[in-house]
């Protein structure tokens, strides 16, 4: 069993890189998207809030897998020539953006609205208020769930193997296709995913403990 794992290891490197690449792109895109939409949904005008709410609720209401299939198969029909890699990143980013939007909204609304009003009344601009008043306080509420969402992105990225992106999951399947010995490979894959995600979730718990003094 152990020998089979060791022998397979060199064939998984490329896939692991793709998994990390997809995850990294998704995390960055979702961080920007989520911060923007989260700000919009917290302080924006009613029309904007409704639009963002609808987007977030729909995206969070369908399974990630369906979102990936929908983006992958529908995009050429409406004239977008995505490769499978791009389609995968777009679909996962949409999903993760919706998650991060909720996290941002939760973190932002945990700060008393008096803080914003006080900032504005001493002459800070809206952006100034965000940067100097809201974000320094909200970041404690934001970090732990956000890191969990990063771990979710890594786990979700396994689904991109189903539209033919050769990530870690698909490399594992490819090696099994040659050796016909699934068990060692699945366990090896589980270990690799575990190491990545356990590191992230420990980090998240660490921050949570670090910021545990914040109580309303």
């Amino acid at each position: 069993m152990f020998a089979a794992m060791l022998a397979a290891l060199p064939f998984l490197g490329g896939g692991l890189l793709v998994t990390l690449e997809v995850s990294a792109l998704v995390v960055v895109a979702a961080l920007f998207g989520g911060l923007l939409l989260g700000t919009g949904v917290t302080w924006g005008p009613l029309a904007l809030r409704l639009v963002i709410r609808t987007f977030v609720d729909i995206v969070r209401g369908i399974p990630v897998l369906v979102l990936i299939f929908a983006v992958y198969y529908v995009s050429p029909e409406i004239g977008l020539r995505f490769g499978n890699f791009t389609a995968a990143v777009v679909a996962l980013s949409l999903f993760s953006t919706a998650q991060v939007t909720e996290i941002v909204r939760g973190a932002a609304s945990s700060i008393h609205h008096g803080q914003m009003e006080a900032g504005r009344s001493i002459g800070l601009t809206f952006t100034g208020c965000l940067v100097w008043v809201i974000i320094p306080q909200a970041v404690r509420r934001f970090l732990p769930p956000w890191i969990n969402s990063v771990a979710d992105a890594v786990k979700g990225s396994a689904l991109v193997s189903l539209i033919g992106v050769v990530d870690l999951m698909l490399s594992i399947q490819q090696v099994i296709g040659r050796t016909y010995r699934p068990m060692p490979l699945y366990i090896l894959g589980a270990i690799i995913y575990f190491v990545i995600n356990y590191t992230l979730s420990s980090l998240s718990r660490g921050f949570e403990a670090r910021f545990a003094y914040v109580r309303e």
Partner: protein
Amino acid sequence: MGYVLNFTLVWRHFGRLEWGLLLSLELAVLAIGIGSVLGLALALVHNAGGRAVRLAVGAYVECIRNVPLLLLVYLVFYGIPTVIDLRYSATTSFVVTLSLYAAAYLVEVFRAGLAAVPTGLIEAGRAIGLRRGQLLRDVRLPLMFRIVLPSLSNTFVSLFKDTSVASVLAVPELTYGAQWINFNTFRIIEVYMVVTPMYVVTGYAILWVLRRFERRLAVR
């Protein structure tokens, strides 16, 4: 854009989506049922057991939670039968996987719930002479259930969405139905225009019903 929407073929095969949705719900119900029993058992064992037991339960939780569901689904269906002599259908295999997956999330939920039962009530129960078993059955579990209900609802809806992964084992649930229509009729946009609302509406409808139920049972 020269694309004309045509739903005829989607409606002709709507049965696949209809039965698919029902199967998805069925899978989610089974998973939350089995997962709750297992999760509750593990939570009680964790609270009562010694260091070794706590470590074992913790290891189970972390191992399941940090690995993609897709990998677990493959592992149970394709991997385990090669090691031990067991035969099972794709559906059984998926239900087992999703239940084990649900249990790992629910252990934490139940532990938090048990910890949130007010100590005063437990002491009161002890003061009127309830034994440990009675205390658990008549005081701690009913209160815990009412406390964790919102988390259970959320878990149920997220399991309902996770059933889409069963499509990789050709379990004919909603996503599989969508894929079938997609590949066989090429009415791609139409099929996703139908399936998306089916997931969204069902998910939020379940949540709405469960929220009403929760409000009635909430611990005040």
